[in-house]
């Protein structure tokens, strides 16, 4: 059990790299199919749009300057807000869930984890359509609320920011639960008892011991939810309607509708920059100096 090796941090003994060649196929694949297209997109982001939607290879900052337009700023801000909100809700829902799963009898844990991942067995698009059916004017949600007498008029649920966040939380909650489960599973329960014994209230046990010691899982979960959330386009497209456009929709729009590939590329790189900044910020937040990320 994990209780035994709290004190031991194995030093990474790595000298020569005799088996490094094993990484060559994977690196080659990434270089060919990830790095090359990325460089292409980066190059396109400094080109300009031809009259009929082609690419004119003339260096310009214009695409990035265009993005300073308030309209784009609003979409960017909206995306950040939806993604942040989604991440926060996923954490609040996911942490207790992960905690309960990790502390349930060992033979139940695989079953419970399977249930968490069960939605992945169905296509994401299909599941999002299912949400449309539930949230629409005469959908399941409204019918239920009407039947319970909680409302008298059907609510406007679909095509609202709330629908987008509901869809995103639904879609990415498992990504939060899995790393949190791993982190809580590794947390020695005796530390919780020790804190409790040392006069800590339940809240203090959570904030002083459980959360700091599961921080790697929390950071991992937040990143895994935040990144796909901010870049998502199916969910805002189907559940959000025109009012709840996110960066993903903007990119899709520029590439496929307006056929302005240079602007779409610029938006893509801005999105990447935001994600990168967010990831760095999360890690900073999680490890002030010599935080729990190292050593455990």
């Amino acid at each position, binding site marked *: 059990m994990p209780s035994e090796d*709290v004190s031991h941090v194995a030093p990474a003994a790595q000298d020569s790299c005799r088996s490094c060649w094993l990484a060559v196929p994977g690196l080659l694949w990434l270089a060919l199919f990830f790095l090359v297209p990325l460089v292409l997109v980066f190059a396109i982001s400094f080109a300009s749009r031809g009259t009929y939607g082609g690419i004119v290879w003339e260096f310009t900052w214009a695409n990035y300057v265009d993005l300073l337009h308030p309209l784009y700023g609003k979409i960017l801000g909206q995306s950040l807000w939806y993604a942040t909100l989604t991440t926060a809700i996923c954490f609040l829902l996911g942490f207790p869930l992960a905690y309960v799963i990790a502390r349930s009898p060992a033979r139940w844990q695989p079953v419970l984890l399977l249930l968490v991942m069960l939605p992945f067995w169905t296509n994401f698009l299909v599941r999002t359509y299912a949400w449309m059916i539930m949230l629409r004017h005469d959908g399941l949600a409204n019918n239920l609320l009407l039947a319970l007498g909680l409302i008298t008029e059907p609510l406007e649920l679909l095509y609202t920011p709330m629908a987008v966040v509901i869809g995103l939380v639904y879609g990415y909650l498992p990504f939060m639960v899995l790393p949190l489960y791993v982190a809580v599973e590794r947390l020695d329960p005796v530390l919780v008892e020790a*804190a*409790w014994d040392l*006069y800590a209230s339940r809240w203090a046990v959570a904030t002083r011991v459980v959360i700091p010691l599961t921080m790697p899982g929390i950071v991992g979960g937040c990143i895994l939810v935040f990144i796909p959330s901010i870049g998502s386009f199916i969910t805002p497209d189907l559940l959000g309607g025109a009012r709840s456009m996110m960066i993903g929709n903007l990119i899709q729009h520029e590439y496929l509708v307006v056929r302005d590939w240079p602007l779409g590329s610029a938006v893509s790189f801005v999105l990447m920059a935001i994600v990168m900044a967010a990831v760095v910020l999360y890690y900073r937040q999680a490890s002030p100096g010599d*935080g729990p990320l190292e050593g455990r």
Partner: protein
Amino acid sequence: MATFSTSPVSASGPSLSSTVPTIDIRAIVRHHGPVAAVDHVSFQVRRGEFFSILGPSGAGKTSVLRIVAGFEDPDAGDVLIDGRSMLGVPPNRRPVNLVFQSYALFPHLTVFENVAFGLRMRRVPAALIAEQVEQALAMVKLVGKERRKPAQLSGGEQQRVALARALVNKPAVVLLDEPLAALDQQLRQAMQVELKSIQEQAGLTCVCVTHHQEEAMMMSDRIAVMHQGRMWQVGTPRDVYENPRNLFVSRFLGVSNELPGRVDDVVEDGHLFHPADDQVPAFPVHAGSEASPGGSATWSIRPERLRMSRERPAGRDAVLNGFIEKVLFAGSETKYLVRVGRDRLWEARTTGAGESPHAPGDAVFLHWAPGDGRVFVE
């Protein structure tokens, strides 16, 4: 030494007339499934006392500790600390601190913050925290290691941090769960002495759970022997060792060389014990008042009470002859396994000083006085 107390040992030790005991456990019962892990256990611990609960694994001793700490609730009975019932009081509101077997130090906090944890939770002013933590660290000789993380400390140092983290809160009782079990033998012996001196110096009241009989005897003012959820005997280490109440206690606290048989005729200073084995002649014993002539019984003697000689001893001692089967040299003493019957192997000991050692195969005589052994009536 050789006097044999026949009076039953009081479960609460010498009488305490006016003062309220620090811990007063009243007939607690705790079931784990259908099994009673703790079965009507009662004991009291006085202020400043080092009290050990000794027993094999699965005896229920850890359950008792967890009930006192508040992690488990008893199904029946009461737990009083300083005269106040603790039933329904959660661990964070009990004036007790537990030193965990695995230490349970917070890996993300420094030594200082680990020790300061309890004080911070009770919102002690920062200046006072610094002072008290330093005092506690000085007591366990860890000054200068405040900024280390637990993973950077040795096992012994981690043990001290765990101790300091408990005693800095000045709890009514410090609970110790197998406190030295994770240390190697030498460190363990050094820490036994140190833990005991810290306890005396700080005037701590300690309840310690251990399966290590020597450790319990060396550190404790009183020992409770627990087995199958029940407390079989409570008393001072010497009392429990020399006057065990039953065979289990006798066997658990040390080596018990035994002869089955029956107690018979009253002789001048006791009874006569007739071993079931016809080869062994009857010999006088000091049986307790509970020994009724004719009843089957087991006679037991500790290895250090057996005297061993090459010639048949003169005098009135009971004598049994045998052969040395194994010699176990342990430095300061030598243990001999002596074959005294077809299926009976006894242990005898000699201190190394000034005697020629016996060798395997040597014929020896084992002898003892009536008061050296003990009779357990079945």
